């Protein structure tokens, strides 16, 4: 199987404190890998290592067969995009959606007019209102804002998308719609996805593979179906047991 991303012996530090310990991980092309763990387990830190945003780390990041240096190329930042948990913190409240969406493309050398055309297509695809590009973030609901954040990530036509808890701030019924949309887009564009979540229900719904992180140490990896049938580690089992289920009686 072709790998989109390969991580070897990743260690990361905040100051003197080590937060990731020798993490080895691969994501196959067109696969969705769910990275689970509890708060402080190092999931978001790992995403920052992949994108080159965390300087104090060691180990090797291989993206689509190429070893990445400390400074990533513009092409890397076109091909790799990210969506964060809180759309309020990731969409500039003082910019119109049109500006927010086109800026990334303009930096990549697309003319503002062409960028606007592509944005309109994306807005339609995301089931957002037609006048979205002229409006400010505050006039949208949480679910709509998160779809805008996803649209922005797709603007540069990436191959690999990191979604960091993209549905955690959403209501359950809205979450369902968002997950379905991500699945459709994934098929249409052949995306490879690193899906970070604490919610095993969400992971099971959308991921092909799973990796469990605890206190910066990778506990287990494998196919999602195999994990949910029988976790390999005690911690995986504990995590799965802790998920609240509906009790009918």
């Amino acid at each position: 199987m072709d790998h989109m991303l390969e991580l070897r012996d990743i260690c990361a530090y905040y100051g003197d404190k080590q937060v990731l310990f020798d993490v080895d991980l691969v994501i196959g092309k067109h696969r969705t890998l769910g990275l689970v763990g509890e708060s402080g387990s190092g999931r978001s830190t790992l995403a920052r290592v992949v994108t080159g945003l965390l300087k104090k780390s060691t180990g090797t990041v291989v993206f689509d067969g190429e070893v990445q240096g400390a400074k990533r190329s513009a092409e890397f930042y076109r091909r790799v995009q990210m969506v964060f948990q809180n759309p309020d913190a990731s969409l500039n409240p003082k910019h119109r959606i049109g500006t927010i969406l086109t800026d990334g493309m303009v930096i990549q050398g697309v003319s503002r007019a062409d960028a606007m055309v592509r944005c309109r297509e994306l807005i339609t695809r995301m089931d957002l209102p037609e006048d979205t590009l002229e409006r400010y973030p505050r006039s949208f609901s949480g679910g709509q804002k998160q779809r805008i954040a996803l649209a922005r990530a797709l603007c540069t036509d990436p191959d690999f998308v990191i979604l960091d808890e993209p549905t955690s701030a959403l209501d359950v019924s809205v979450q369902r719609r968002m997950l379905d949309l991500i699945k459709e887009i994934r098929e249409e564009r052949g995306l490879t996805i690193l899906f970070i979540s604490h919610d095993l229900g969400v992971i099971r719904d959308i991921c092909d593979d799973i990796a469990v992180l605890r206190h910066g140490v990778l506990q287990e990896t494998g196919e999602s179906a195999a994990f949910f049938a029988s976790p390999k580690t005690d911690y995986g089992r504990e995590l799965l047991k802790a998920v609240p289920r509906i009790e009918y009686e």
Partner: protein
Amino acid sequence: MGSDLLTIKHLNLYSREGSHLVKDVSLSIGHGETLGIVGESGSGKTLTLKAIIGLLPTGIRETCEEKKIEGKCAMIFQSPLTSLDPLYPVFRQLVDVVEYRQGVSRPEAQKIAEGWLQKLSLPEDLAEEDRYPGELSGGQCQRVLIALALATKPDVLLCDEPTTALDVTVQKQVIDLLKDLQKELGFAMIFVTHNLAVASQLCERLAVMRHGEIIEEGRKADVLKHPAHAYTKELVDSVLSVPEVD
């Protein structure tokens, strides 16, 4: 419903601008009963809870045909770190609450507070070596908050999403703890959450709120297995299930 401890009839809440936030909400709860109020953001579930205990934000206008509360209420909140005083060591907060609310002497309060540490599986060395909220984990802070609420010996415990900010393994501990304490101490509980699964584990009765109204209420089994309202069905269907592990 039994002898009612708390009865609210036709509660209406309006914002300063006049929008109708909570519409005609009626509910009641008897001794030792558990009621879950489930709804999504903006459904008015937290406001309803705040109206019961009298903590409505300024500017909210309230009308209520009948509001009868027999006995004491206590409340726990979603974010333990913002509801504990960060400059006030946790054990001292607990001892102060016990001393003031139970009207006992300081040494007596100290002893009772130590009992609560044990009941809530908090580190017992807190009694000798007190710590600030920032030095405890989120789960520990939430347990301190539960101890503070229960130390007032409430007849009704109002819970506003107390497990939402916690990790799943910690959430499970807090749910199990609340279940055990409720059985042991017999307080009634109103539990507000957006998480149907959590509500179903803690409550005998469920009320579903949407756009400020209770659209469905009944025994847990009835509401979950035979939802009368399409929205309730949508909520039940939205729960992404995971298989059991042995």
